[in-house]
Each structure stands twice: as structure tokens, then as C-alpha cells.
């Protein structure tokens, strides 16, 4: 859609008024991203409506400001209350959803449906956040268990400037590399991770080293006695190490 057609469609006004379907909303957001001048236009629409609201303003009672600020300060100062509020909000969230369902049955109104849809979206978002956090927690727990296990061997490897460690555990069949202390690859070069396996003459490739994160797990390899990192010219690595940049100390 070109900018003129878009402006004439009235979608931008509908967006500001919260009157868009999900599909229309994504059209508007795409257009805003593509044409920054539309953002200016949206801002002007919002400003006009904001001034309209200001023109119809009713001053709230004098004591309310302090009361609200006091409540917020309480909310902030008690950490445990936050948890309680969170739990309460979760329960309340459920209760509100149920109430909204009842409202629909009772009223059969479109407005109730819209609220339910919004509520539903919010709950979905919250659930997604919880799941992401849970995944992070599980990964951290996994890392913590490996680190404190007495059966975990810590193999230090070092290069010219930096030193890091590989955590190797037979019973857990785990190999993990601490990336937080790794050197960066030269521009256009890629780091590959190798295991030196007992009884074998050539090092075994474990895969490429990730470019972000601070902890990387690799597929377990039996009878490793050392590990190394090499710098390679291709992102897929090589069959034999090109330039070894880190080796066991």
C-alpha cells in the first residue's frame, strides 16, 4: 500500500482509537515501520485527541495524588507483597477471565468478547514469559549441577591471552565449555572445538563454538584427555585443525 492510499483509508485514526482488528493492526505497524513519516502523522492524530481529552478534563480531588503515590511506594518497598500481588493477580486474572465469560453469556455483547480476547492475549503473553524463564532456569540448574558435581573434571585450556575451562563428566556424559572467558575469533574466522581422545592420533571435532552466550554444551565424547580450540577459515569448520588458538595447559 502506498502512503497516500494508506492515509486515505483512515486506518491510522482507527489504530489510535484502538478500533483495529488484529490484521489491520499489523498492517498499520508494518506501514509505520516502512514509512517513518507516518509516525509523525500518528503523533499528530494522538496529540489532537489528547488535547480534546485535556479540554474535557475534570480535576480529581486534592488528596488523591498523595494517596496514589503512597500506595505505589508501599507496593515498591515490600518485596514479599509483590509476590503476593503477583499470585493475587494470577488468581484475579483467572477470576476476571471467568467473569468475562459469564458476562458474554449474559449480555452476548461484542464488547465482552473483545475484552475476553484482550485478556486472553495478555494471559498468553504471561504464560509465554513464564515458559521462557522456566527454560532459562532449567539451563542454569543444569549448569550448576555439572559445576558442583565432584565427578566433573575441570580441564583448563589457554591461548595467548585468555584462559578458560572445559567441564567434562563421564557419569553425566556431559561436555561443556565456558564461553565467558573465550577469545573472539579474528574477523572472517571461526572457532572450532576439538577433543583429544585417548588412543587416537587425530583430534576429534566437537563442532563450532557459538558466537554468543556464556556457556555451551557439546555432544559427549568418551575417553577425552584434553580439549582444544582452533581458528578456521569457514563457518562450517575443518576436518583437521587449521590454527590451534587454545590448548590444555
Amino acid at each position, binding site marked *: 500500500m502506498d502512503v497516500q492510499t494508506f492515509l486515505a483509508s*483512515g486506518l491510522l*485514526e*482507527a489504530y*489510535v*482509537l*484502538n*478500533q483495529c482488528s488484529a490484521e489491520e493492526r499489523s498492517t498499520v*505497524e508494518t506501514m*509505520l515501520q516502512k514509512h517513518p513519516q507516518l509516525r509523525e502523522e*500518528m*503523533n*499528530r*492524530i*494522538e*496529540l*489532537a*485527541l*489528547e*488535547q*480534546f*481529552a*485535556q*479540554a*474535557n*478534563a*475534570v*480535576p*480529581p*480531588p486534592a488528596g*488523591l*495524588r498523595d*494517596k*496514589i*503515590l503512597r*500506595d*505505589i*511506594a508501599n*507496593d*515498591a518497598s515490600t518485596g514479599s507483597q509483590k509476590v503476593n*500481588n503477583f499470585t493475587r493477580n494470577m488468581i484475579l486474572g483467572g477470576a*476476571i477471565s471467568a*467473569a468475562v465469560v459469564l*458476562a458474554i453469556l449474559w*449480555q452476548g*455483547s*461484542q*464488547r465482552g468478547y*473483545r*475484552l475476553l480476547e*484482550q485478556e486472553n492475549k495478555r494471559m498468553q503473553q504471561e504464560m509465554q514469559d513464564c515458559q521462557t524463564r522456566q527454560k532459562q532456569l532449567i539451563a542454569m540448574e543444569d549448569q550448576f549441577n555439572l559445576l558442583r558435581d565432584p565427578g566433573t573434571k575441570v580441564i583448563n585450556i589457554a591461548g595467548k591471552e585468555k584462559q578458560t575451562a572445559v567441564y567434562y563428566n563421564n557419569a553425566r556424559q556431559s561436555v561443556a565449555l565456558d564461553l565467558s572467558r573465550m577469545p573472539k575469533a579474528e574477523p572472517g574466522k571461526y572457532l572450532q572445538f576439538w577433543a583429544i581422545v585417548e588412543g587416537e592420533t587425530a583430534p576429534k571435532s566437537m563442532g563450532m563454538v557459538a558466537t554468543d552466550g556464556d556457556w555451551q554444551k557439546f555432544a559427549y565424547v568418551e575417553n577425552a584427555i584434553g580439549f582444544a580450540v582452533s581458528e578456521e577459515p569457514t563457518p562450517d569448520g575443518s576436518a583437521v585443525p587449521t590454527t590451534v588458538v587454545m590448548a590444555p595447559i
Partner: protein
Amino acid sequence: MQDSIIIQLQQQDQRAIATLYDQYSAALFGVIMRIVQSRELSEQVLQDTFTKAWRNGASYNPEKGRLFTWLLNIARNSAIDATRSAQFNHSKKSDSLDSLVHTPGSEQINPEHVGLRELVGKLDEKYARLIEMVYFQGYTQEEVAEATGIPLGTVKTRLRFAINELRLIFSDNPAAMLLIGMMAERI
């Protein structure tokens, strides 16, 4: 100024709420009063609005609109929830809509905005009512058409016209006022 409030808001800095309250509480209270129609309940809703803004500050995304638009959405939804739980029924709400929208009590006028109020008074009543219903009270355009008996297409056209007219009113351009008069005749 908006930028620093946004950062404070996202970091749950209490100063953000104080600033937002000073700037927007009266405008929001005006909207809430229109929906809730009880002063006592309106105060509760205004308090809920700022508490929600405080708790959900991190979710505000400046790319999706101005702070006031965000706050208004919170206020409007809280007010609609409050009227529902107070078991206001729909017909009562529509009835009192007419009585409330166009008869603001003299004690409610915010002196700072008297000049603006006069200006907005120049906005044709049929447009003012449309904006009130949609922008303040969260009616969909379909619901407006149903409630007022105006065809949906006309509702949409008038709404766009009303917003453009507001933009002219607030543009401080005397020539704009003439233009409004001329254009209003045509729709």
C-alpha cells in the same frame, strides 16, 4: 521530556507516576467520570489506573503510541470493568450517555482548560459526541452505528473528519477556524 519519563516508568521509578499524574490525571478523570458516572467509583478507577501503569510500566512501547494514549486505554478498560462489576446494565449506560456527555457540571470545569473548552465547543456537536463515544468510552464504530442509527460508512467518515477538525482547532491557526466552518457544512 517524554523520553526521561519513559525510562523512569520502565525502571519502576516512582517519580514517573508523579509526573504522569500531574500531567494527565485531570484528563483521565474526565474520561473515567463519563464512563463510571459515580464520583467515588471514579476515584477508585483513577487510582487503579495509575497502579496498573506503575506495575506494567515495562510493557509500555513508545513505538505503539504516546504515553497518554496508553494511559487512556488502561483508564478506559478499568472504567468499563468497574461499571460492569458494579452491575451497570447497558441500557442504563446508553441513557445516561446523552445526559452526561453534553452537560458538564460547572464544578467540573478545569479553569486551565476553559479556553480550550470553548474552542472544542466549536466542534460540531455530532462530531464531539462521536469522538466521545469512540475515544473516551471505547465503543466500536459498529456499536456507534447501532446506538445512534447512523450508517456505519457515515460513522467512519465523520470520525475521520472529526479528528481532522480537532487537529485544525488545536493548530492555533485562525484561518483553520474558517475552514472548519466551511467544511462542516459539507458532511
